[in-house]
């Protein structure tokens, strides 16, 4: 058998694939964070909580209303996005004029509240959610067995990431959004309702987190901590990619997933820190991140 770094090659191919799957979640979550930060200058620490709520809404839709996974893929982001819209209008919008750190503290507090409330109601072990039957099998790829559902996650994540990147960077709507954050007074003078646009952007970022939550529900235990476990890594992804850079967040998310995957074979005890080691190295070499612009 071919060996790489003293490990069987098929094992490393397996890790590459698993890394891409984990990277899918990093990419989807960090993309939402990058949009909210890039356009609103809010460091949304509640992003992990929104991801978790997305998963719980998916579970609730099935268990209380009998609505299956495929409808939840649309409904859950819409529901959580609407909640995000209300949150932006009532709470977040009040702090735009303050230092960016207030946004961080506010969203951190909100995340703690939401997480605590969910723990009281559902316990910390959480609830289980089964993958849809059509995606529940296992594929034999030769070098590993891949759950069909995980394959689906990669597919979905790539499409979602590309669609969002395209919408923000290449369409008129995206240009309007970017203009509105750059110079809101000017854009408003053209008759655009800027506060509304900003609220919808926040709702969109939150909906993306919820969508990732829907995709995560069948993979992990749906529990109140599922977001807070990921959020530190996701912030590291945003910082490495360059804060506010959407394309950077996507590419970095996938790349870090792969690096983590290899690390899990070569030195498993280090898997919690490898992302932060990369972050430190990148910041030393490029203080604005890989794709960020120095302002």
């Amino acid at each position, binding site marked *: 058998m071919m060996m790489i770094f003293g490990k069987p090659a098929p*094992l490393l191919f397996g890790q590459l694939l698993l890394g891409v799957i984990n990277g899918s979640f990093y990419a989807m979550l960090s993309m939402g964070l990058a949009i909210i930060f890039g356009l609103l200058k809010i460091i949304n620490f509640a992003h992990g909580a929104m991801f978790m709520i997305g998963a719980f809404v998916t579970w609730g839709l099935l268990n209380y209303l009998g609505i299956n996974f495929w409808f939840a893929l649309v409904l859950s982001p819409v529901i959580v996005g609407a909640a995000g819209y209300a949150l932006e209008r009532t709470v977040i919008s009040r702090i735009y004029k303050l230092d960016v*750190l207030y946004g961080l503290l506010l969203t951190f507090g909100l995340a703690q509240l939401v997480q605590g409330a969910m723990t009281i109601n559902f316990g910390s*072990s959480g609830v289980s959610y089964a993958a849809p039957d059509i995606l529940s099998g296992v594929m034999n790829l030769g070098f590993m067995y891949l759950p069909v559902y995980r394959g689906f996650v990669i597919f979905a994540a790539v499409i979602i990431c590309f669609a969002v990147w395209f919408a923000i960077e290449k369409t008129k709507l995206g240009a309007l959004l970017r203009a509105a954050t750059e110079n809101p007074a000017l854009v408003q003078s053209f008759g655009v309702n800027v506060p509304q646009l900003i609220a919808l952007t926040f709702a969109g970022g939150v909906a993306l987190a919820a969508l990732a939550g829907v995709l995560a529900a069948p993979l992990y235990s749906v*529990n109140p901590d599922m977001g807070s476990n990921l959020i530190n890594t996701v912030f590291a992804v945003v910082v490495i990619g360059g804060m506010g850079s959407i394309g950077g967040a996507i590419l970095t998310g996938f790349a870090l997933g792969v690096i983590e995957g290899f690390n899990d074979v070569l030195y*498993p*005890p280090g898997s919690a820190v490898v992302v932060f080691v990369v972050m430190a190295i990148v910041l030393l070499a490029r203080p604005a991140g890989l794709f960020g612009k120095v302002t």
Partner: protein
Amino acid sequence: MKVSRRKVVTTGAAATAVAAVMPTLPARAAGKSLTIGVCSDFSGTYSDVGGETSVVCVKQALADFGAANKGYDVTVIKGDHQNKPDVGAGLARQWFDSGVDLLIDVPNSAVGLAIAGVAAEKNKAYINSNAATSKLTGTACNAQTIHWTYDTYMLSHSTGGAMVAAGGKSWFFITANYAFGQLLRDQTMAVVKAGGGTVVGDVDYPFPQTTDFSSFLVQAQSSGAQVLGLANAGKDTVNSIKQAHQFGITQSGMKIAGLLIFINDIHGIGLDIAQGLILTESFYWNMNDKTRALTKRIVANSPNNYPCMGHAGCYAGTLHFMKAVDAIGVDAASSGSAVVEQMKKMPTSDDAFGQRSIREDGRFMCPSYLFQVKKPGESSTPWDYYNLLHTTPAEATFAPVATEGCPLVKA
């Protein structure tokens, strides 16, 4: 608006620190007043096997003891150790200095060991009901500590021994990389090797940050081992087993030995996936009429979480502590070693464990039960999850006292 990265990072760290709020104590009243501190994981991976239900169990024990009728004014306080030994030890020190008479629960072996040292230093009673490490009654034992419900010796010999006896000779371990996981893995490895088996691989993953076990599971799968030994607990075990199912590990014939699984974990996994798992607990709510009646009283105040063995230990430990205090008086009981000595002298008696005793090294002696998780069709009521396979008597459940290296035990 300009943001410096340094500002973001420092504020993030400050915000995290805000979450670590230390609970404060009420002023100590005169007369027969006592304070019991429940130090547990209230927010993390072990909060369902400890946490609020532990507090409910302590209060239930006080009610069943009739503390108020007997003139005791007992205050129950709680604190979250966040699975950090320094936070747990700091909390214990603060509590003991401000008059806490008994500290109880403490899931997480690293925190449990740290607090044992503080209890000895401050001479205060400490009942650990929820950490697994057998060092609490071994090299780290002291005159103030009682280890109640279970330990790594029990788990490795009961579950591990049963799997080896059933033909599972080659093992791959996935281990939570801290005091508990390492000890449980090492003791189980010894059982496997003593039974003629081999260990073909082991990965140690960082605790408590890990939620995705797929990389480790794929390594286990490619090792070709017959048994996957999970030397972890709580949500880690739930995630490991669910993900093992997704990767077709059990379907391909590999057996999973969950070395520490609580009923709350089975609830989180669901019977569809958990069915057939072999595990060991020293308490099961649906064991007999007394355990069922006790559980009914507890669940009235903990509706979403049934008691596991760790919770039962909090109940039984508190009840026994109160009996010992009653025997020697509140003033004498402010000495941890005095009240613990009294607890060792008296036989225990409660609805959770029946008539038992506490050994000189602080080991609560109870039988252990090897269970198999029911199929979904066999479960008739909520949380009706186990079939009893085998009972190991107390003397065989725990390591012989002379072999543990406890300095309290005279050679």
